[in-house]
C-alpha cells in the first residue's frame, strides 16, 4: 500500500470550493470557527428533519423526510409545529438519535447567541419539548406557516447536534468538535492539518442512518480537496485525480470536454453546465438616486444586448431569464413557460411612446449563433423546447431610442454625447463586480458597463473582493452583479427568498442590509403579496398565483435586471465512478457542496473492477 494510503478505486475525490480551510481542526458547524462546511462535513455527516432537492430527488419527490418520519404538522393558526421522528437511527458512536437531540439543539442554540441558528430560533420559538422519544413539539411566538424551513435542507439547514457530546462541553461556542460524531453515512477518517483535504469513510453501520433508505453508498472513502484555481482543477481532472469539479471557467469546461473522453456534464452537450437555483442580475441600489427611479432602471435594461453579455460571460453557455426567478427545470415549467404570453404583450410607456420590449426569440438566436461555431455544431439542440430549456426563452430587446426617452422622462439630458443627470452632473455608474472568484460575473459586468458607456454614460466595472460583505451588506454600491433571488429549486414555493423582501426588513440607507433584497427595494404592492403568502401553507396551489403576481410586479418595476441562470460548470470524471446526476437522470444537483449531494453516494457505481 502506497503511503497516500487510500485505494483509488474505492475513493471518490471531490472539489471543495471553499478552498483551503483556515482552521482545519474545527468541526463545530454550529459555530463559525473558520472550519469548512463543504469539506464533506455537512454533506456526509450531518442530518436534519427534512430535505428539499434542487432537482427531482430520489424516492419520487424533491421533498424528503429525513430524520422526520413525516411532513411537519401545523395547528390551524400556524403557531405550533409537531414533528414525528424516525426510529432506529444512530450516531456514529453508537448512541441512538432521539427527540432529545432535537430539543437540545434548539435550546442550546437559543442559549448561545453566536451559534449559527441561535437568532433564528430565538426570534421564533417560544418553547420546544419532546413529548416522547420520537415526537417534538414547537410552540412559536407568532404564526409562521414556513417555520419548518429552518429544518429543511436546500443547501443546508439547522443541523441536529449530538446532545450526548455537547452536554459534556463547557462552552459550546469554543468547542471545536474534533473527531466529529456523525449522523450521516460517513465518518471522518483523516484530514490535512493544512486544510487542503478531508477524507471520510463509510460507516460500518451505515444502515442505521437516514440515507440507508435509498440503498448502500458505494464509495468506501470520499475525499474533499482544494485543487487550486480553475486551470489546476482542469489539469487534475484530465489526469483523473479529481472526480468532481465543482465549478470551472467556461473555457476550462470546453477544454475538458474536448480533451477528455471520460467527462460527464449536466447537459451532455452545450451549455454543459448545471443551472443553479439562483438568479444573477444587475442589482440596483434603489435607495440611491437615480436608481430609485424605475424609468432609469428600465432605460439601463434596454441598453443591454443580452446576446453579447451571454457570449462574453458564459460564451453562450447560459440559460437566460427575463423574469425574476431562476430558470431551473422546475421554474421553467411552473413560471417561465406559462408567462410567455404575458411577456409578449407586456408594454412600457417611455413618455413619448409605448413599446413592447420583449423579444421571445433570443434563446433561439443564441442557439443559432452557437451552431455556427464548428466546435459546438453538433451539440446545439434544434428542438425549440430543448432550446428554451438550455438557453432560455427570450429577453428584452436592446432599444437605445426608448432608453433615451426614458432617461429624458426621468429628467436626464444628453449633451456632447454624454448623459447628464437631472442636476446637471455627468451620469456616472460604478458597477461592482466580484473579481476572479466568479469571473463570469466579472465578464458580464464589464461588458454591460461598456454597453452603457457606449451610450454616453460614464460607466465602469470595479472589482471588489468579498463583494457580499464589503458592498452589498453595507449598501456601499450603486450597481452590482450578484444574485438577490434564490429558490428551493425543485419546489415552486418562492417564500424561501421572497419573505425577506418585505419592506419591514429593508435597512435604512447606510445601515447593514440582512442578506436578502440587496437592492433594498420596498414596495407596498410587494408587501401585500408577501403577506398573502405568509397566510397560506407551503403546498397551497394559490402560492404559485401569488408568485406570478410578484414576477409581473418586478418586471414592471425592474428593481434588478435578471440576466440568466447561475450556471455552474460542474464536471464529473467517469474513470472511477459512474452514475452521476445529469439531465437524463436528474436525481439531484451535481454541484458537490450542496448537502443534497449525499444522494450521489448511493447512486454512484464503481467503474473499475475491484
Amino acid at each position, binding site marked *: 500500500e502506497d*503511503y497516500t494510503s487510500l485505494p483509488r478505486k474505492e475513493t471518490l475525490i471531490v472539489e471543495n470550493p471553499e478552498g483551503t480551510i483556515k482552521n482545519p481542526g*474545527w468541526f463545530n458547524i454550529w459555530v463559525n470557527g473558520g472550519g469548512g462546511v463543504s469539506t464533506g462535513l455537512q454533506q456526509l455527516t450531518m442530518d436534519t428533519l427534512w430535505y428539499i432537492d434542487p432537482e427531482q430527488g430520489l424516492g419520487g419527490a424533491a421533498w424528503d423526510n429525513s430524520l422526520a418520519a413525516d411532513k411537519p404538522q401545523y395547528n390551524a393558526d400556524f403557531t405550533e409545529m409537531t414533528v414525528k421522528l424516525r426510529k432506529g437511527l444512530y450516531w456514529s458512536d453508537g448512541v441512538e438519535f432521539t427527540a432529545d437531540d432535537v430539543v437540545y439543539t434548539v435550546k442550546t442554540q437559543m442559549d448561545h447567541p453566536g451559534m449559527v441558528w441561535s437568532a433564528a*430560533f430565538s426570534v421564533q420559538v417560544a418553547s420546544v419539548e419532546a413529548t416522547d422519544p420520537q415526537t417534538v413539539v414547537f410552540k412559536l411566538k407568532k404564526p409562521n406557516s414556513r417555520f419548518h424551513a429552518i429544518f429543511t435542507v436546500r443547501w443546508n439547514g*439547522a443541523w441536529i447536534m449530538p446532545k450526548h457530546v455537547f452536554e459534556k462541553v463547557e462552552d459550546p461556542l469554543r468547542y471545536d468538535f474534533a473527531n466529529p460524531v456523525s449522523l450521516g453515512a460517513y465518518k471522518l477518517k*483523516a484530514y490535512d492539518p*493544512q486544510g*487542503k483535504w478531508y477524507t471520510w469513510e463509510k460507516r460500518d453501520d451505515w444502515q442505521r442512518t437516514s440515507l440507508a433508505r435509498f440503498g448502500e453508498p458505494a464509495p468506501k472513502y470520499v475525499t474533499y480537496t*482544494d485543487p487550486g484555481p480553475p486551470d489546476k482543477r482542469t*489539469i487534475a481532472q484530465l489526469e483523473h485525480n479529481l472526480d468532481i469539479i465543482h465549478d470551472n471557467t467556461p473555457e476550462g469546461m470546453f477544454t475538458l470536454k474536448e480533451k477528455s473522453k471520460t467527462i460527464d456534464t449536466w447537459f451532455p452537450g452545450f451549455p454543459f453546465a448545471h443551472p443553479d437555483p439562483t438568479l444573477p442580475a444587475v442589482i440596483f441600489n434603489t435607495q440611491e438616486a437615480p436608481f430609485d427611479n424605475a424609468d432609469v432602471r428600465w432605460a439601463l435594461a434596454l441598453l443591454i444586448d443580452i446576446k453579447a453579455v451571454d457570449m462574453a460571460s458564459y460564451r453562450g453557455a447560459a440559460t437566460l431569464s427575463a423574469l425574476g426567478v431562476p430558470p431551473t427545470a422546475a421554474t421553467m415549467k411552473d413560471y417561465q413557460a406559462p408567462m410567455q404570453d404575458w411577456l409578449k404583450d407586456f408594454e412600457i410607456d417611455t413618455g413619448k411612446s409605448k413599446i413592447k420590449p420583449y423579444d421571445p426569440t433570443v434563446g433561439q438566436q443564441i442557439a443559432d449563433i452557437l451552431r455556427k461555431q464548428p466546435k459546438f455544431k453538433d451539440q446545439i439542440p434544434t428542438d425549440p423546447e430543448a432550446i428554451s430549456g438550455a438557453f432560455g426563452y427570450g429577453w428584452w430587446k436592446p432599444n437605445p431610442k426608448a432608453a433615451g426617452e426614458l432617461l429624458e422622462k426621468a429628467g436626464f439630458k444628453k449633451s456632447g454625447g454624454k448623459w447628464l443627470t437631472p442636476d446637471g452632473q455627468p451620469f456616472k455608474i460604478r458597477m461592482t463586480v466580484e473579481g476572479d472568484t466568479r469571473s463570469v460575473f466579472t465578464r458580464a459586468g464589464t461588458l454591460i458597463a461598456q454597453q452603457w458607456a457606449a451610450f454616453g454614460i460614464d460607466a465602469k466595472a470595479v472589482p471588489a473582493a468579498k463583494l457580499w460583505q464589503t458592498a452589498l451588506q453595507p449598501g456601499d454600491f450603486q450597481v452590482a452583479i450578484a444574485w438577490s433571488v434564490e429558490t428551493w429549486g425543485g419546489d415552486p414555493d418562492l417564500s424561501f427568498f421572497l419573505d425577506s423582501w418585505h419592506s419591514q426588513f429593508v435597512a435604512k440607507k447606510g445601515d447593514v442590509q440582512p442578506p436578502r433584497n440587496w437592492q433594498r427595494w420596498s414596495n407596498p404592492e410587494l408587501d401585500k403579496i408577501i403577506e398573502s403568502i405568509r397566510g397560506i401553507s407551503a403546498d397551497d396551489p394559490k402560492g404559485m398565483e401569488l408568485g406570478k403576481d410578484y414576477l409581473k410586479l418586478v418586471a414592471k418595476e425592474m428593481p434588478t435586471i435578471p440576466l440568466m441562470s447561475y450556471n455552474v460548470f460542474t464536471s464529473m470524471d467517469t474513470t472511477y465512478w459512474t452514475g452521476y446526476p445529469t439531465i437524463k437522470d436528474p436525481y439531484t444537483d451535481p454541484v458537490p457542496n450542496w448537502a443534497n449531494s449525499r444522494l450521489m453516494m448511493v447512486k454512484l457505481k464503481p467503474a473499475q473492477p475491484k
Partner: protein
Amino acid sequence: MGQSDPNAIELMRQSLRELYGMQGSIWQQYLHFWLRLATGDLGPSLSAFPTPVSTIILRSLPWTIGLMTVSTLITFVLGNAIGALAGYYRKDMVLKAVSLVFIAMLPIPYYILAFVLLIVFGFIWPVLPINGGYEMNANLDLSFALVTDILKHSILPALSLILVGAGSWLIGMRALVSNIITDDYVVFAELGGVPKGKILRSYIARNAMVPQFTGLAMSLGAIFNGTVITEIVFGYPGIGNLLIEAVHAGDYSLVLGLSALSIVGVAAAVFIIDVLSPLIDPRIKVE
C-alpha cells in the same frame, strides 16, 4: 443561508460583534489591537473565530520558513559560487554561459517565471506536483516517503525562487570580485605567489562575503516578499497564501497579525546581522 429571517440576522450580528470585540469606534478597536499585540496576543481571527490568530499563523509558518530558508540559502550559495568563479576566471566560456543563463532569468518578473514553470512541468510535461505541500491523503506520520513527497512538492517553488534569485547574487558577487581583484591585498598576494585557489577562497571570496552576508540576512528578512507569490502560484500552505486569504476574507486581525509578524521577522534579521557581522568582518566590533 438556512435562516432567512432578517430579524434573526440582526440579532446574530450584534452577538457576533460582542464576541469579536468590535464594540466602540474604529480607533478604540485599533488601540485595543495594539495593546494586545504588545502583550504578544494577536487576538482571535475574525474569519475563523474563536481560533487565535497566532494558532493559525503558527500552522503555516513552518512551511514558509522551511521553503524560503532552504531556497534562499541554496540561491545564496549557488549565486555566489558561480559569481565568484565567473568574476575570477573571466575568460572561462562555461562560466560565462552559466552566468548568462542566470542573468537572463533575473529581470523576468517572478510571477511570470513561476507561472511558466508551472505550465511546463505541470501541464505540458506533467512530472512534478504543482499544488500543495504534500500529496492528498498522505500519511502524515514521519516517514521517508513523506519526506520525499514534501521535497518533491517543494521542487518547483524552490526552483522558481532559485532561478530568479541566483542571478542577483551572481551579478553582485561577480562585480564585487572584479573590484576586489584590483584591491591591494589581492594584488599583493598574487605578487607573493600565493596559489590561485587560495587567493580566490581566502582573499577574494572571503572579503566579498562581507557585503553579501549582510544581503543574505536582509533577504532572509524579506522572505515575506517572495513568499506571497510563490505560495499563491504553487498553492503552498504557508503564510503568503494565508495573507491573501485573510485579505479576501476581510479578516483584519489576521492581516494585521501577519504584517506585524513580517515586520518582526525583518527586525529579527537585522538584529542577527548585527550580532553576526563581527564573525564575518573582524573590523566591526559590537560595543
